[in-house]
């Protein structure tokens, strides 16, 4: 698959402005209307543009039916990883003086793996005195629950910022619409 560097920059800019992963997939489809293997092309674009390992469920995407709440799973699957890897793909924007601040500025995220490792016995201060008395199954369960809690908390934080960015955008557009309406009346 051949990715277009211009499209990569377009995708990054759209994401900085608040586009969700489904919108980005739709954009890839629009920019490559003849592509028969969107499921492969999307992998390349998300890896090049955002460092994402894998985009699942592309075969279920229907460009004619987007946006749609049915694609909300990509927000769960991909947003945290895109934020986690922003140091790889968003470094130029961070350095730019007076650059537009993206909605995820200041947010950090860790992979589930990192959360999982951090939740191992030694990393959980409050459980230090009882950890060794738990059997391996109990330890594994606690580790999974603590890791999952940390991971989900980060996802919620990311989603709250994105939701607010989208509300900003709605307000901007409402303002523009109002001006157009007034000028039309006048």
């Amino acid at each position, binding site marked *: 698959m051949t990715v277009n560097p211009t499209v990569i920059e377009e995708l990054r800019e759209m994401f900085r402005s608040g586009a969700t992963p489904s919108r980005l997939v739709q954009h890839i489809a629009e920019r490559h209307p003849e592509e028969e293997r969107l499921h*492969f092309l999307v*992998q390349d674009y998300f890896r090049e543009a955002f460092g994402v*390992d894998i985009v699942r*469920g592309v075969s*279920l995407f229907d460009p004619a039916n987007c946006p749609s709440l049915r694609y909300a*799973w990509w927000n769960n699957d991909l947003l945290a990883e895109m934020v986690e890897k922003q140091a790889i793909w968003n470094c130029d924007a961070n350095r730019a003086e007076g650059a537009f601040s993206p909605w995820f500025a200041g947010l950090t995220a860790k992979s589930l793996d990192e959360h*999982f490792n951090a939740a191992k016995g030694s990393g959980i201060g409050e459980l230090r005195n009882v950890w060794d008395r738990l059997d391996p199954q109990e330890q594994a369960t606690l580790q*999974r629950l603590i890791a999952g809690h940390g991971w989900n908390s980060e996802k919620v934080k990311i989603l709250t910022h994105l939701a607010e960015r989208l509300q900003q955008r709605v307000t901007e557009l409402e303002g523009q619409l109002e001006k157009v309406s007034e000028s039309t009346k006048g």
Partner: protein
Amino acid sequence: MKVIQATASTFWAEDDADKRFYIVGTLGSGLLRFEVIARLADGTRGNVRGRDFFDAMMQHFGVKVRIIEGTWTRAHGLTTNLDLFNQATAAGLGPEQAALVATKTGQWADAHGFTKVVFQKLQPRNAPGHYDEVVVRFTL
């Protein structure tokens, strides 16, 4: 089967008679993540079995694979593994055993010697037969 891309970190292949059926696999730091489409939601099957896609991917990556990850969620709508997992846990199998012996990914991983099972996500908690989201890792 037609291999579309095979690099140190990626493996893509498709059913050469029907592009709707494919595998995408990615390997990073020994962790293998993948998605196989060997059957559509309406039951239509391709000419290449999921197992054959998987074996071709494993052959490509070889000994560099240390962990095989399964991510099964109802949200995607691709629920073959999740459904099998839920059937098995509802029937009384423990989650580890169910993941390894009852699911496609577990059976394929087992056949390559990846028999240890660790869950990283199992939601909702303690819900045999009704899990919505599972992240599981198979190791040697």
